[in-house]
């Protein structure tokens, strides 16, 4: 492993507790991390290619299959892009229901990551199975909370995984008030459990680091971002989502089968909970803000390890917002608005649990997809993840290799990366899920 006394190589051949298959390689020479590679060896997914020739109405259900953890995000970005192309606005109760569906996905995804995947790092366990021996209540809390998120997606999406009720213009079926009755009671419990989760996550021992990032997220004037808004950054970017490809680009790197994204003018950037929090703190609402403050978070946070706390704060927001939606819910007169198909290009950008998800489709006059572009959040974060590992290793070289390796994995898990989602570049390799 060492070619000189001053050279250390840290390899994790199979990253655990991330979605998908990846590896990390770090080479340290003369007390500097000289080479850091997040290797993603998931097979190519080719979704962008096989969307060509498909009808616009198929996009939400096909792209939902990109990820079993964040299918709602793919559905939402797809329908917004189509509606953008057709000049359709979905408003009122239908719009609120879409936000409710997104609340369900955030709760499911964030809770799974906080308790089952990320917390063992902070508490010094190799996995949640070992953690459960000493912290069984955390596991119980996680399952019960996640179940409430599942329930939202099941009622509104038709089933818990890969929901099937979303269509361009709205939904195929909208629930009655009675169908939501039991969910309201579950959400009241979930909101309290989420507040408890913020306290729990806030008390976890956390490395004391602060990094300077360019945060990128949607920003909406009236709400914490799910479905709509302008793309803004902490470096002053403020663009319509249709301008995305003017400012961001993807590039292939030799060591990964996933594309790396960067801001053309500057380089790496960060999407996800930490970015949303820093760029949209004012829209979190009173309850989530108080929870954040009680856990020691200020209005901004540049410690990537604190992302576990921010996810908990966003879970509070999702539970609270879901309750607000249900409190004022009146079923819309029709499950979907009429859509007049026309040729054009449509843009959709929404906030998946792990960050901004961009879709662009070009359509012919019959609504057939001519080409598609999909940029998942993990693709956008890869350069930043490598940068974090490089900095962390350089600052913690005194740690023994075992400990440093574990910390590198923790750094990666700060991003809750969804490697399956981020892999869509043609490079022939066959690995199955």
């Amino acid at each position: 492993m060492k070619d000189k006394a001053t050279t250390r190589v840290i390899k994790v051949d199979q990253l655990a507790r991330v979605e998908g298959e990846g590896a990390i390689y770090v080479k340290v020479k003369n007390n500097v991390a000289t080479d850091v590679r997040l290797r993603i060896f998931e097979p190519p997914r080719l979704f962008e290619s096989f969307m060509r020739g498909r009808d616009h109405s198929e996009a939400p259900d096909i792209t939902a299959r990109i990820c079993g953890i964040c299918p709602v995000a793919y559905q939402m970005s797809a329908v917004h892009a189509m509606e953008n192309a057709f000049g359709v606005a979905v408003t009122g109760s239908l719009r609120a229901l879409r936000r409710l569906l997104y609340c369900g996905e955030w709760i499911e995804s964030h809770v799974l990551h906080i308790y089952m995947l990320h917390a063992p790092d902070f508490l010094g366990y190799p996995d949640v199975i070992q953690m459960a021996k000493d912290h069984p209540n955390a596991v119980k809390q996680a399952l019960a909370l996640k179940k409430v998120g599942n329930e939202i997606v099941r009622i509104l999406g038709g089933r818990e995984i890969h929901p099937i009720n979303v269509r361009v213009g709205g939904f195929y079926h909208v629930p009655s008030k009675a169908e939501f009755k039991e969910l309201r009671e579950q959400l009241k419990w979930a909101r309290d459990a989420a507040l408890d989760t913020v306290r729990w996550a806030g008390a976890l021992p956390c490395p004391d680091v602060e990094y300077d990032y360019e945060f990128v997220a949607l920003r909406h004037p009236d709400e914490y971002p799910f479905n709509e808004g302008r793309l803004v950054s902490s470096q002053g970017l403020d663009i319509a989502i249709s301008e995305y490809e003017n400012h961001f680009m993807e590039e292939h790197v030799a060591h990964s089968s996933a594309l790396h994204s960067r801001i053309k003018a500057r380089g790496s950037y960060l999407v996800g909970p930490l970015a949303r929090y820093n760029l949209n703190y004012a829209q979190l609402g009173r309850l989530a803000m108080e929870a954040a403050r009680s856990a020691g978070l200020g209005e901004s946070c540049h410690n990537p390890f604190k992302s576990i706390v921010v996810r908990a704060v966003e879970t509070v927001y999702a539970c609270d917002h879901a309750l607000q939606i249900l409190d004022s819910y009146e079923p819309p007169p029709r499950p979907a608005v009429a859509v007049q198909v026309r040729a054009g290009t449509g843009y959709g950008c929404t906030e998946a649990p792990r960050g901004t998800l961009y879709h662009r489709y070009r359509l012919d006059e019959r609504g057939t997809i001519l080409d598609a572009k999909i940029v998942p959040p993990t693709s956008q974060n890869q350069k930043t993840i490598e940068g974090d590992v490089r900095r962390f290793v350089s600052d913690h070289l005194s740690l023994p290799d075992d400990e440093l390796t574990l910390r590198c994995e923790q750094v990666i898990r700060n991003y809750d990366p969804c490697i399956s989602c981020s892999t869509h570049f043609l490079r022939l390799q066959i690995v199955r899920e």
Partner: protein
Amino acid sequence: VAAHPCPSVLVIGIGNPDRGDDAAGIAVARRVRAYSPAHVTVLEQAGDGADLLAALRSTDAACVYIVDAMESGAAAGSVAYFDVHAGALPAQLALTSSHLFGVVQAVELARVMGWLPPQLIVCGIEGRRYAHGSALTADVQRAVEAVAAHLAGRM
């Protein structure tokens, strides 16, 4: 594997019906559902460990069978039964899913939490082809029939 009939049975088939031999668990579940008597419940799951854990925790069934595709290096269509109460599941089974909180982790977490049902058998069917949109291979198809018949004999 106990040969006596169980008073209540839960069969959980796991997999992706659209990815070749990964559908083995789902295929067994559907066959069992077609003939299952009233005391048998059948679930289909995608492989999310949290969902499996929730099912194990909430079931009242005395006997639970989990059926999933596996990749152990054996010949395609090979079938292995693991009595979870007899010991930990083989670690290599964890590799059958890229979702790192998967079936093996869920079963082992259930063990730690004290949520294992009185009898839990994990049935692995060795797969060979997992391409998107492909069907079960002939070897795995035969194994599916054999496992479904085996389970029927215990109901």
